[in-house]
């Protein structure tokens, strides 16, 4: 196994606003459970960070089956934010993650602004939580966070309220299902967000041609996987150029080239999601692969790549 000590020539560490990561590879919310699901199958220690499954104040059972549908180059999901609730996470899961090297980013979602505020208050005292990520863009819960992610004024107010109750870095996860993700990113920035993550899943659907019915019980679901990568990359490019906040890129990332694309477009780090389902070791392999690639190309820091494709030659 390659230790970090062997990487003297290449520094994989990255600063994402106030969040310092040992490398730019995180796992995306909803694709890594709470981290411990992978403990047997992946070397968690190697990651830059992990983002938990979205947590609500109370446990949620999630949506009825069918919840997932594989489509060309990706998958649709309608999990419905099934989760164990913030209290069980803090008492049962966080202690097992807190001692590990990766930064733990806690993804939060609520049904109204008060929920987000209470969640942020609840996790704020825990030193094992490195940052909070606000899920304001889940397409799978009616009345869920979605309206917060679609209205700049509401989003700005929500972020301001969360900002006022926590000293932890606040990440706002942007929805791609809006006319202008940039406008929402600017609103989050105005509200005091530290970091943007982009993007959440694209709303889509699939129909079973045998039964002639929608595959998902909720009809619509969120599309993820390689199919969305160019779409996500374009949004990261726009947001990184037009919003004065660091960006974490998300969307179909699976290979070292994918990671580089997002860094070059302006992301300071990336989250790996659906690729973890295909291969639970994807994220740790990307850490090794990125180090090898940067060493081979004589790149001394991740930071030197961030946004490089947007700079004049």
């Amino acid at each position: 196994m390659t230790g970090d000590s062997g990487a003297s020539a290449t520094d994989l560490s990255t600063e994402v606003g106030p969040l310092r990561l040992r490398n730019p590879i995180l796992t995306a919310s909803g694709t890594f459970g709470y981290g411990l699901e992978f403990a047997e199958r992946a070397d968690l220690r190697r990651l830059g960070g992990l983002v938990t499954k979205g947590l609500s104040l109370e446990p949620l059972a999630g949506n009825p089956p069918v919840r997932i549908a594989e489509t060309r180059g990706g998958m649709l999901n309608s999990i419905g934010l099934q989760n164990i609730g913030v209290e069980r996470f803090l008492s049962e899961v966080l202690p097992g993650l807190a001692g590990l090297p990766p930064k733990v980013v806690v993804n939060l979602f609520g049904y109204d602004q008060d929920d987000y505020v209470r969640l942020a208050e609840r996790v704020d005292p825990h030193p094992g939580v490195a940052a909070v990520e606000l899920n304001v863009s889940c397409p799978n819960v009616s009345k869920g966070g979605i309206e917060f992610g679609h209205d700049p004024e509401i989003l700005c107010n929500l972020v301001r309220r969360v900002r006022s109750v926590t000293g932890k870095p606040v990440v706002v996860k942007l929805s791609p299902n809006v006319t202008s993700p940039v406008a929402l990113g600017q609103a989050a920035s105005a509200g005091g967000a530290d970091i943007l993550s982009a993007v959440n899943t694209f709303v889509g659907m699939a129909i079973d041609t045998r039964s002639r019915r929608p595959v998902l019980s909720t009809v619509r679901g969120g599309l993820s996987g390689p199919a969305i990568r160019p779409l996500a990359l374009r949004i990261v490019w726009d947001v990184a150029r037009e919003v004065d906040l660091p960006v974490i890129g998300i969307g179909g990332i699976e290979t070292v080239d994918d990671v580089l694309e997002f860094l070059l477009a302006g992301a300071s780090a990336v989250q790996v999601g659906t690729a973890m389902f295909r291969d639970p070791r994807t994220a740790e392999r990307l850490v090794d692969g990125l180090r090898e690639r940067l060493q081979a190309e004589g790149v001394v820091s991740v930071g030197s790549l961030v946004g490089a494709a947007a700079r004049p030659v």
Partner: protein
Amino acid sequence: MVALDARGKVLEVRLLPRRHFLLRIRVDGMEPAAPGQFVMVAGANQAEPYLRRAFSVYDQEPVGKGVVAVSLLGKVIGPGTAALASCLPGQDIPFLGPLGRGFRRSGRDGGCRGRAALVAGGIGSAGLGMLARALARAERPFDFYYGGRSADDLVEAAEFGRLSESTGGRLFRTTEDGTAGSRGLITEALAATLEAGTRGSTGAYETVCTCGPHGLMAAVARIAEEYGVEGEAAMETPMGCGYGACLGCAVELERGGYALCCRHGPVFDLSEVVW
């Protein structure tokens, strides 16, 4: 039990009638699977479909120290299964397993001492292969009920006949078109045996284990309840990851809420599932 995330080496692909196939894979360092457990696999260098496919372990045999030859019995129904069926001996393929919880009441260490009924619908027989062998090894009597649309759906019927007969049990076959066994549904054959058993002092079976289409397993659950027999079903749902991360494989429970097929299952008590 720690599932192994590794690669398997294809030993053999045997093509069977009606697009069925038997895939034998050599896996180094794998813990033996328990009856009812499954693995996630994909074809060699497979780009599409994107996700791995879940397969019951149909059979396994040690082929050396810490090395297991795993047999998967499948049917080509889409591009994922087609990619597996077209694997060539010697190819390396992604392999994750063994996963999930297998048969409890009737498994390797299960408490069932009485007679068991194993009820398979079509390729669902793959999910009962390990169990049938475990029962045969333990000399616990069982009957094997095998239903399909047509004779070609009853793959490996001779093997299940041999296993059940080695315990003093027998093989019941039904097909909807009457090309093998008796014409009709396999659940009717199960109900007939149980009905006959009510005329004896004890029921015909202590337990019933099933794997097959959802409708068949739901019918088995109804019949088992009617005759007061406990039992288990090896469930199949769409799965993203196979190890509890994607939360996609929800099975609705009678007590409320959902369980993940990949972690709580794939084997469930017949009475705990909302059919």
